[in-house]
C-alpha cells in the first residue's frame, strides 16, 4: 500500500512555477498573521517593561506600576461586568424573540435592525452618551439615591452631570448587546427541530419548550457568547473615555461623581500628554488589558471547543 501511495504522490505533483509561487504567497500571508500577533506581544513587552520598572518619581502618576494599574483593572472589570449583567438578559430575550417569537416573515429584518447597533461607531456612542444619556439619567440617579441609598452601590451623593460608571456601563451594554444577540440567535436557530416538536407534542407551552429544548442545547453557546461580549466590553475605549468622569479610585459606588477609570479609557485620555517613561507605563497597562481579554476570549473558545459535540455552539 505504502509503495503504491508514494509513487502515486510522486506522479501527481508536477511542479509548475505558478503553483509554487501561489502556494508560497498564501503560506507567507498566513505566517504574517503569526508574525503580527507575535509582534503585538513582543513590541508591547519591549516598550512596556521600562514602564513597569520605573520608580515612582520618574512617572507622572507618581506611584509604582502595581499601585497604578490595580485601580484601573478594578474599574475595567467593574464596568465590563456591570455591562454584561445589564446586557445578557436583554440579549437572550431579543435573540429568543427573533428566533422563536417574532412573525417568521419579519424575523430577518428585525435581526438586521439589531445588527445596526453593532455598526454604530464607538465615538458616536460616546457623543450620544455624554450629551443625551448622561443628562437623561441624572434624575434617575437622584431617585436611586433617595429610595435605594441604603445599598452601598447607590450610596451617592449622585453625580450632577450623570457621567458615572453606571452610565458608562449602560453604554457598554448597548454596545455588546448586538454581539451577544447575534451569536445567541444563531445558536437558538440551530436547536434540532425534533427536540422542539417533541416538547410541544408532550403538551409543553412555548416557554416550557424553550426551557426544555432550547436552553439546554444552547447553554454553552450562551456562555461563550457572553464571554465574547465580555471581551468586547473590556477592550472598549472611546465610549468609556468620553462618558466617564474618572478619578482613579476603587469604589463600588455606582452613581457618585468619583469613579474608577478603565485601562483603555485611561490610555486614550492620557496618552497624548504623556512623555518619557509615563508612555511606557501606559503601554504596559495596555499589555495587561491585552492579557485579560486574551484570557477571556481563550476561555470562551475553550468552552465552545469542549462542548462542541453536544451543542450547537460551533
Amino acid at each position, binding site marked *: 500500500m505504502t509503495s503504491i501511495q508514494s509513487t502515486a504522490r510522486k506522479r501527481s505533483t508536477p511542479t509548475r512555477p505558478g503553483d509554487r509561487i501561489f502556494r508560497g504567497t498564501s503560506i507567507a500571508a498566513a505566517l504574517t*498573521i503569526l508574525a503580527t500577533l507575535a509582534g503585538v506581544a513582543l513590541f508591547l513587552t519591549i516598550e512596556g517593561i521600562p514602564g513597569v520598572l520605573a520608580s515612582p518619581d520618574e512617572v507622572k502618576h507618581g506611584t509604582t506600576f502595581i499601585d497604578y494599574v490595580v485601580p484601573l483593572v478594578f474599574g475595567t472589570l467593574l464596568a465590563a461586568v456591570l455591562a454584561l449583567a445589564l446586557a445578557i438578559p436583554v440579549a437572550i430575550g431579543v435573540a429568543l424573540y427573533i428566533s422563536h417569537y417574532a412573525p417568521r416573515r419579519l424575523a430577518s429584518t428585525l435581526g438586521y435592525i439589531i445588527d445596526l447597533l453593532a455598526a454604530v461607531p464607538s465615538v458616536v456612542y460616546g457623543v450620544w452618551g455624554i450629551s443625551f444619556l448622561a443628562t437623561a439619567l441624572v434624575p434617575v440617579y437622584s431617585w436611586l439615591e433617595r429610595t435605594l441609598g441604603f445599598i452601598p452601590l447607590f450610596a451617592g451623593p449622585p453625580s450632577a452631570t450623570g457621567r458615572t460608571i453606571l452610565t458608562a456601563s449602560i453604554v457598554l451594554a448597548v454596545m455588546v448587546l448586538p454581539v451577544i444577540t447575534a451569536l445567541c440567535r444563531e445558536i437558538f436557530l440551530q436547536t434540532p427541530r425534533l427536540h422542539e416538536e417533541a416538547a410541544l407534542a408532550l403538551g409543553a407551552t412555548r416557554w416550557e419548550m424553550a426551557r426544555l429544548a432550547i436552553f439546554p442545547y444552547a447553554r454553552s453557546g450562551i456562555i461563550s457568547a457572553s464571554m465574547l461580549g465580555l471581551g468586547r466590553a473590556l477592550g472598549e475605549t472611546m465610549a468609556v473615555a468620553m462618558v466617564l468622569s474618572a478619578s482613579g479610585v476603587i469604589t463600588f459606588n455606582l452613581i457618585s461623581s468619583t469613579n474608577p477609570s478603565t485601562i483603555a479609557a485611561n490610555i*486614550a485620555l492620557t496618552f497624548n500628554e504623556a512623555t518619557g517613561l509615563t508612555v511606557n507605563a501606559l503601554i504596559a497597562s495596555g499589555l495587561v488589558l491585552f492579557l485579560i481579554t486574551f484570557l477571556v476570549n481563550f476561555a470562551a473558545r475553550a468552552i465552545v471547543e469542549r462542548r462542541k459535540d453536544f451543542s450547537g455552539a460551533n
Partner: protein
Amino acid sequence: MTSTLQPTSPPTPSPEIAKSLRGRSLPTWAPKAIGALSVALALVGVFGPVGFWLVFVAWLVAAIVPLWSMFVEGRRKATDRFVTLLVTTAFVIALFPLGSILTTVVTRGAPVLSSDFFTYSMRNVLGEGGGIYHALMGTLLITAAAAAISVPIGLFTAIYLIEYGEGKRLARWIRFLVDVMTGIPSIVAGLFAYALFVIFFGPGVRMGVGGAVALSVLMIPVVVRSCEEMLKLVPNELREASYALGVPKWRTIVKVVLPTALAGIVTGVTLAVARVIGETAPLLIIAGLTDSVNFNLFDGRMATLPVFTYFSIITPGVPPGPSIERAWGAALVLLIIVMLLNFAARLVSYFFSPKGER
C-alpha cells in the same frame, strides 16, 4: 359465535368532558387588542407630548394579558404569556437606544451640514466656521491604506486555510490565532502600531500609515473569517471539474474558486471596512489630530473623522458652541458613511450571490 364485532364509531365525549380536555382559554381577540392598545400608548409616550412615563403605563396595560390568563387559563399558560411579554419587552428595550442615537445624531447633526462644512479644513479657524475636509480625507486615506494592507493578507490567508492547509497543524494554529486577533482591543492595536513605529522613528511619532497598520490588525481577522466562510461554500465539484481538465491548482483558484466566491468576498471586505472606518482609539494614539489637510500618509499627524469628533466635543475651546456643533456634524457624516457601507454590502450579497443561496 357467529356474531362479528360491530365497527364502533369513536365515542363522542359529553360536552363537560370536552370542555375539561380543552380547558378554558382567553378569547383570541383579547391579546391582540390589548397589545395594540399598549403599542399605541407607548408610541404616544415616546413621540407625543404627554411624557415618557406613558411607556410604563403601556407596559402595565400589556401585563393585563398574563394576569387575566392566570384566572382563566391557569398558571402554566399565564407563565407562557408572561414570558412572551418579557421577550417582546426585551426587543423593544433594544430598539430604544438605536432610535435615540439615530434621532439625536440626525436632528443635531443635520443643520450643521453644508457645502462649506465638507470643503473647509480647520486651519486658522477659531470659533465659528471651518469644516471636516481634512478629517474626511484623512479617514479615506488611512482606511484605504488599511484595506490595501489587510485585503491581500486576509484573502491569501483564507486561501491557505481552505485550499492548502486542510488538516495541517499550521492551519489549525492560524485559525486559533485569527480568533485571538479578533479579540484584540482596538486601543491595544494602536499601542502596537505606536510601539512598532517608535523603534524606527523615535518617541512621540505620529503618522497616518501607523493608523493604517493599527486598523489592519483589527481588519485582517474579519477579512480572513468572512473570506474563509465564502471559500468554504464553493462546491468541491467545481474544483474537481477544473482539475480533471488539467488546470493547475493556482489557476483553478484564480479562475474558478475566487470568481464563484467573489460576491461574498466583496461583502465581507465592505463590512470589514465599515467596522474599522469608525475606529477611534488606535488613530487617537498613532495618527493624532491636526487642523490642516495632510495627504501624506508618511509625514506627521493626520486628522480623521472619529478623532476630530472626539476632540471637538471633549476640548471644545472658547466659545464651546461651534465646536460641539461641528462634532455632531462629523458624527452624522461618520454614521452615514458606515450605514452606506453596510447597505452596500447587503446589496452586493443580495444581487450578486449565486442564485441558489438567496
